[in-house]
């Protein structure tokens, strides 16, 4: 046998593992860049700052109902 198969196999191993690691390390870098880019330019729009808290909202609703009811009573006075 002219060539030593094991020696050839070891060479393949160096090349193969090298390429796999370099490729995936590059891929990691690309993933980080693309995450940064997307975060920079396409970050999801933050929801508009609320003008009132949910508690206020509830109070406003109750106020509106009371106002509506009193208007109705004014318009339809009962005998």
């Amino acid at each position, binding site marked *: 046998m002219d060539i030593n198969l094991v020696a050839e196999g070891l060479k393949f191993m160096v090349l193969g593992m090298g390429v796999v690691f370099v*490729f995936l390390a590059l891929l990691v870098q690309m993933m980080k860049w693309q995450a940064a880019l997307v975060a920079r330019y396409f970050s999801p729009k933050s929801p508009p700052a609320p003008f009132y808290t949910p508690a206020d909202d509830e109070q406003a609703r109750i106020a509106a109902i009371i106002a509506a009811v009193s208007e109705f009573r004014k318009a339809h006075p009962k005998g």
Partner: protein
Amino acid sequence: MKRILLALVASWIALSVMVSAQETAHETVPSAQTALAEKAFESKSIPQLMGDFFGTTGLNAIVNPKHEMHTIGGKQVDIAWYESWGRVIMFVIVFLLFYLAIAKGFEPLLLLPIAFGGLLANIPIANMTGDHGMLGIIYNMGIANEFFPLLIFMGVGAMTDFGPLLSHPKTALLGAAAQFGIFGSLVGAAALSQYTDMFHYTLKQCASISIIGGADGPTSIFIASALSPELLGAIAVAAYSYMALVPVIQPPIMRALTTKEERQIVMTTTRKVHHLEKLIFPLVVVMMIALILPDAAPLMGAFAFGNFAKESGVVDRLSGEMQNSLINIVTIFLGLGVGSKLQADKFLVPETLGIMVIGLVAFGVGTAAGVLMGKLMNAFSKEPINPLIGAAGVSAVPMAARVVSKVGSEEKPGNILLMHAMGPNVAGVIGSAVAAGVLLSIFK
């Protein structure tokens, strides 16, 4: 009843002796004359008809195998043994595969069609694996030209979610480390053929055996049919059997290489990934393949296309088809086509035994390399990394990730590692496709 059966058997045997005597007589007749004789129909007596019919039965073919010299494993061998006992042994092996697929749930989607293909391939006389046989047609249609594995990869791409990987990009390195299973076992296979007399693998054969360590069925079939189609049957059976055995093979290795504290590490929660990142990712992969390793373009191209179709969100009909009907149809063909290589004279050779052993070692070495890389990364990383997730770096999606999650929650109930393990898991698919590309580029 028994007597009738006995009498029948006795008459079959008597007939078989007659027929074999006839065959030896026929051999002396020049072939030109027999060709002429075939054209004119001759009236035959009942015993003659029955005798001729017996000559066409499979029983006769197995009892009276033809003697021909073929090259098997680089040696001139009389194929008579393969035509008789070889077939019987293959039937037994095929039934064992049925048992594993049905009763034990070993990757039934592929092992069952493969085993049935093997059953059909070993039917004597029918020549199902010939150019005009059903299995032969399927094999030539999509396996000899490496087409079916690519379609499978397309479907796998359409099913894969890269979200977990994108939220923890670093874990891709674990998928790289686990590919050591491939190259380590390549050296192992080379050593076996260099230093023992039992196995004589060429370097191409070593390469296609070692790809079993990538734990990726379609990639294994792709490489085997490209580099050494004669070993395809054994390689596919080994790859899918060991993939089914991931829950058995991996946990002991994972436990042996890690301390209890390491196994209990809780990882920080995953970041929410913007949809645009998932959409860009397959394009990034294709561009990198285009620039660095065009030899992996068929595999990664199909994979990225499937994934891009899914993430685009506008062609749900197409991606749905890839994930369902297409991958199912191709799985049927792929299984039967691979099964056609389970013929006795191709499977019952010492090489198959070597493939089974090397494949198992490859799985173990890949797992170990992934876990060790996990330990290394944990030592240097700011965020804690549970080394167990390194074991998911061998592809075997999503089985390996599930195994990791199971082992993790056994060590510390409530520690869910599944999403963290999916990152290295899908990176492992890319890693083994890259490794496959490197092997192809070496032998071009």
